[in-house]
């Protein structure tokens, strides 16, 4: 669409800019302020430059949570994106079956984060949960409170349960925008299922899948509540992701300076990755 050049449009976005400036810029400046100071008490503080940043970068705990976080996000994307596409391909396109399937799919998305945690905390317990008792009955040792691997499996399964529907709904929106004529043409050419997917469906899903990857990366990278409720970051620190580490530092230990420096670097990583995806998205929309 050709847009008109008119700087008066700024008046229309002014309310948003003011609101977001109040709720984002002011707090962010506070964080910047803390990150370069050493605070001893209410009125005692000293400027120390990038000392906290240096300390945080060298902190082995922070490094470990960072590696864990990357690993988690990569696993999540590797499972949820293909699975979501598969589910979307299986969804009926029209009629009440389609509506029903969409509503059922969307239910996990409506569950508050801590309730998701509560559900899985019980569901995966070996003595009282369906999942835990079934897996143990199959002869596989599984106990997420004692064993790190089990804890990871639980958290990943929970996230797949929680967010694959988002990917599926996005992919479905892309699929539904394909005109029937495309499929008819493919049928006339006797195109294989794989060819239909590769040359018709996948290209049409490109922009929605980019959005899906972007959203899933961002949200999995800042996951806090669900693993916190289920494992509390344990056993040991096996599931201590970046946000859990950060909240422990800021609220638990009240280490304002280090926590602030940590926050800024954390935010910066998300910003960089998201910028890459955002640029890709812009390019897809432009073409």
């Amino acid at each position: 669409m050709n847009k008109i050049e008119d700087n008066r449009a700024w008046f229309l976005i002014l309310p948003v800019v003011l609101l977001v400036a109040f709720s984002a810029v002011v707090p962010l400046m506070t964080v910047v302020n803390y990150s370069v100071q050493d605070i001893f008490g209410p009125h005692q503080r000293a400027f120390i430059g990038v000392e906290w940043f240096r300390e945080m970068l060298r902190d082995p705990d922070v490094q470990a949570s960072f590696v864990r976080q990357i690993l988690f996000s990569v696993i999540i994307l590797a499972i949820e994106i293909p699975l979501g596409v598969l589910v979307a391909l299986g969804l009926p396109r029209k009629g009440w079956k389609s509506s029903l399937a969409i509503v059922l799919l969307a239910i996990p998305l409506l569950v508050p984060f801590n309730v998701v945690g509560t559900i899985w905390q019980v569901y995966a317990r070996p003595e009282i949960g369906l999942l835990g008792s079934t897996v143990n009955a199959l002869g596989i040792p599984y106990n997420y409170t004692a064993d790190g691997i089990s804890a990871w499996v639980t958290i990943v399964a929970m996230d797949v349960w929680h967010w694959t529907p988002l990917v599926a709904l996005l992919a479905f929106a892309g699929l539904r925008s394909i005109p029937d004529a495309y499929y008819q043409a493919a049928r006339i050419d006797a195109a294989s299922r794989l060819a239909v997917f590769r040359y018709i469906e996948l290209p049409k899903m490109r922009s929605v899948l980019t959005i899906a990857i972007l959203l899933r990366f961002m949200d999995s990278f800042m996951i806090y509540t669900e693993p916190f409720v289920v494992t509390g970051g344990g056993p040991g620190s096996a599931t201590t992701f970046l946000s859990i580490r950060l909240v422990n530092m800021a609220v638990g230990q009240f280490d304002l300076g280090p926590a602030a420096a940590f926050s800024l670097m954390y935010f910066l990583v998300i910003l960089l990755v998201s910028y890459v995806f955002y640029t890709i998205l812009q390019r897809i929309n432009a073409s």
Partner: protein
Amino acid sequence: MVSDANVTSLADAATPRSKARSSGARRHLVGAMLLGLFLTFQMLPIYWLVRMSLMKPADIMASADFLPKAPSFDNYMTIFTDPTWYNTYINSLTYVILNSIISLSVALPAAYAFSRYKFIGDKHVFFWLFTNRMAPPAVFLLPFFQLYSAVGLFDTPFAVALAHCLFNVPLAVWILEGFMSGVPKEIDETAYVDGYSFPRFFITIFLPLIRAGIGVTAFFCFMFSWIELLLARTLTSVEAKPIVVAMTRAVSASGLDWGLLAAAGVLTILPGMAVIWFVRNYIAKGFALGRV
């Protein structure tokens, strides 16, 4: 079903058209089975929550049988009759509705500006808004606490409603912009030629055209505000305590009443389910940020 498909494929194997149809039927079947499997995986944990909500704590801790033992609605009755429980439910609804109204009313004009006009810094502002959707709430925890305490909003629904604008406003702008870009610009031009002022055009002509988009956006604001815990917990203590927070405190205080907790959990899922039915036809488009 399987044998049916085979019979048809054997009978009409000669013509390529029926071959395509039978492979289509088989594909359908595989797709349906996969979907059924996935939906089962989705529903079992929800079922487990409902099952727990109907049981007494002692029974919950006793076994992992599939069916609930001695089911009753006692847990729900406790929540509905105890003001400390149901007030938190009302508190949640208050800030969620407040947030949806604020988000929509500021996002509507902004989304229109982004979809129709070019102006200095438009792309930068758009990306900047978008970065706020990406900010980990954990980063904003302490500053938010101090900011809202300083302006006297701590422990009021306004604090949570405003804090949730951090991620809901950018999302609302993004979704609405997608829906608005789908409306042909000729409509605006015709209206201006006909002598409509901008506010009159915007409210009487443009908004009705994108009401599906507005509905979906409202739903998303509602949903994301409703399910958030970290900021809601940080910005409230007693007066404005939301249901999700009441649940976390019930865990530490009363020694894990799983039945009560599960009933409260079921109740937190209901409002979303009530709303989702109305937007079911647009929700896929909404998740795609109005861009399909």
